[in-house]
């Protein structure tokens, strides 16, 4: 797939636009095919989407999926058995242990950026930072190819945002919409005006902008208007963000934590058709006191993660939703004199579940002490190519930054086919 610019309309995009129109009922010939709400809901349900669980700071592979019990690098936790025979994970993850049949775990990540800013950029875009190019985050790419034009909800949402590359050269249309760590809407998205006054103001603003746009043909005017329209449409779906009632019902499933609430919010958004939601958890940068940090952070995280997968599965959404679990880096095999583990990218772990990937797979292997990858190294490019492929997006799809072609996964990346269905 070659896209000469970001205004390119692909067959998929055309179809997607058509479906969106059809669901709205304004194009009657096509609309007759999709004129019931049930059909539209089914189309919506089958659309692939993605939730990124972002472990900011770099979660330790030794304290999650790649334990080295009895080795000098092993640490203080003990392995537990999982529902995948022969596979063990850290004792901090009893709920994930019972969901291993849903996961593909990659124990052989080998990436190229060992610091936080570089790693966060790398693991949000697939690319190292480069002067003069603003690479789009994975959420923006997915919003572009799986998003719905004219949706009341944004196509790229971050809850407790990390990474600041945003849409990059894809342009403001695909910028992330950020919720607060508590999942609250930003203040600008809520109007206190009387709806009638609000409506009249919108009409007036549209009139003025129409006049301006006719005279100046300015791209910025169009973008400005689109942004206003998106904010106005958001008023229609405020209830999606009110989760208190549902939280009372689902607290036990997700676990009583801020991260659990964020995951429930992510499920609600995915259910409403948002193609990409990132959910962050902070504080994994455990240069000191690695074990007690992980003892505090991992249990609420894994509880929420397992609850999210269960909830998605029970709603028939997991097979259409790719759940990606990763941070920007791994952590060192050696434990330093602060009882900490430092940054490490020669061998670390990530995980995938749901749309397009097999369950019950452990891919790749690190060596005896977790110092290096023993089998099947997976680079950042390979990982992103695999994610895009799982979501039905050709990883060789190119965008252009000026005259330079930039594929959505870096040149030379290999899809890890063994983990895909």
């Amino acid at each position, binding site marked *: 797939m070659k896209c000469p610019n970001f205004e390119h309309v692909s067959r998929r995009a055309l179809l997607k636009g058509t479906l969106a129109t059809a669901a709205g009922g304004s194009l009657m010939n096509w609309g007759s095919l999709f004129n019931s709400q049930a059909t539209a809901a089914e189309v919506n349900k089958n659309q692939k989407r993605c939730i990124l669980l972002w472990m900011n700071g770099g979660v330790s592979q030794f304290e999650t999926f790649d334990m080295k019990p009895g080795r000098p690098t092993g640490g*203080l936790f*003990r392995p537990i058995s999982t529902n995948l025979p022969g596979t063990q994970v850290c004792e901090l993850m009893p709920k994930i242990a019972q969901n291993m049949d849903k996961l593909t775990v990659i124990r052989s990540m080998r990436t190229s950026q060992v610091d936080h800013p570089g790693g966060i950029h790398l693991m949000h875009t697939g690319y190292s930072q480069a002067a003069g190019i603003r690479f789009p985050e994975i959420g923006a790419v997915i919003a572009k190819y799986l998003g719905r034009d004219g949706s009341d909800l944004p196509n790229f949402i971050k809850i*407790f945002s990390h990474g600041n590359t945003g849409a990059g050269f894809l342009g403001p249309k695909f910028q992330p919409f950020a919720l607060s*760590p*508590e999942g609250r809407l930003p203040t600008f998205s809520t109007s206190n005006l009387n709806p009638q006054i609000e409506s009249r103001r919108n009409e007036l603003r549209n009139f003025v902008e129409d006049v301006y746009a006719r005279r100046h043909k300015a791209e910025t005017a169009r973008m400005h208007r689109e942004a206003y329209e998106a904010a106005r449409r958001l008023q229609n779906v405020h209830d999606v963000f009110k989760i208190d009632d549902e939280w009372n019902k689902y607290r036990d499933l997700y676990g009583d*934590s*801020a*991260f659990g609430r964020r995951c429930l919010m992510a499920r609600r958004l995915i259910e409403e058709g948002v193609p990409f939601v990132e959910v962050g*958890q*902070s*504080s994994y940068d455990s240069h*000191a*006191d690695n074990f*007690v*940090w992980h*003892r*505090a*952070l991992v249990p*609420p995280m894994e509880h929420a993660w397992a609850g999210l997968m269960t909830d998605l599965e029970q709603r028939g959404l997991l097979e259409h939703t790719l759940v990606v679990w990763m941070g920007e880096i791994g952590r060192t095999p050696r434990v*330093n*004199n*602060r*009882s900490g583990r430092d940054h490490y990218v020669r061998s670390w772990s990530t995980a995938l579940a749901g749309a397009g990937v097999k369950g019950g797979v452990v891919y790749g292997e690190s060596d005896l002490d977790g110092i290096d990858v023993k089998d099947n190294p997976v680079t950042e490019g390979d990982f992103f190519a695999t994610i895009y492929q799982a979501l039905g997006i050709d990883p060789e799809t190119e965008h252009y930054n000026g005259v330079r072609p930039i594929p959505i996964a870096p040149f030379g990346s290999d899809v890890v086919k063994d983990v895909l269905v």
Partner: protein
Amino acid sequence: MKINKPSHRWQLKFEGEWPTSVAFLGDSRKLAAGNRGGEIFVWNLPEEPPAPQQDEKDEQEKTPPDHPPTRQLTGHDNGISRLVATSDGKTLVSSSLDRTVRLWDVNSAATGSTEVVLDAKDRQRRARYKGEDEKKKILEAPGVKVETVDSAAELTGHRGWVGSLGLSGDQKQLISGDVTSLVITWDLAARKEKSRWTGHPWNWAVATALSPDGATALVSEYTYKRDDFDIPAAGLKLWTTVDGKEKLDLLKLQFPNLDPKATSYGSAQAWRKFVKGGLIAADFSPDGKFMAVGQGGETDTGKVHLLDAASGELLRTVSGHRYGVCDVKFSGDGQYILSSGRDTTIRICQVSDGKEVATLGKERGGQYKDWIHALAISPDQKTVAGADIAGFVHVWQL
């Protein structure tokens, strides 16, 4: 306790996993130490140590002599968090990350023997630039033969890592706390549970101590944050041990507006300065009038708060370890507070005015220093020991 001119008498090698805990067993020449791998060894030291050796790196320095252990206490399969011993030295108690508390009859007959290597790091250093044959000879040299002793009792009931342990002054009761905030008191003679209670469900019982008569428990609760916006309030409370009822909320006393149920980052700021990285060490003075709690974690300066045991009033804040306190103990006469920390030192301060009167050890490490993870005072109050994460147990004569 009399502090003359403290001298560094022994530097016992205990390499491998970090030494985390130490206790004297009846007198100043017999001690036990545990590490993060679950190993516990017992040393019987000669009355007079041999002459110190010249330090290889520093002409001005001399290294105190090493001495091999005689016994290994086997049973734990994860790290030892604390050791306490009865003053007669007959019973040693260990708490562990394996969720158990174990009791040891230290003088009981050996159950076997084994050979252990406690100088692995030193061997690697010596072998580094040698030829293959010599390297092999150094690395594979025989270790130390020790007797093995099984534990006399295993106290179960905890649901997670047991990180804190204390013994009442009358030697009749134990207290232990785990990472689920569960606290259990035990009858030492009967080896049975007496009472239990829990704190905030997200918190850990990071430090526990019993009053001399065992009637009151001091419990410090803390947890490392679940993420930036999910931090339960720390806790520091007195409890009645007989029924596990809360007696006094010491943190609430310091911060009357504290909401123990609040879990926001904002609420954490109320207690952050007082608690720092958790009040991870606690002790009662021998007369039961005072309590000491040490600020742990990786903080700029870890201090020790001295509190009135009856009113909970903060009397003064003493000491000041760079990067945090690891352990706190009152001297037997109640005149001094001894604290070990993340700056490779043990600091001795006067209770009366907080003045620091001696420092044992000196800072070692890179930007961050090695820790003295735990300290012990001999029953005769003449000797202090420290568990050094670099792989040593140090013994100082005061």
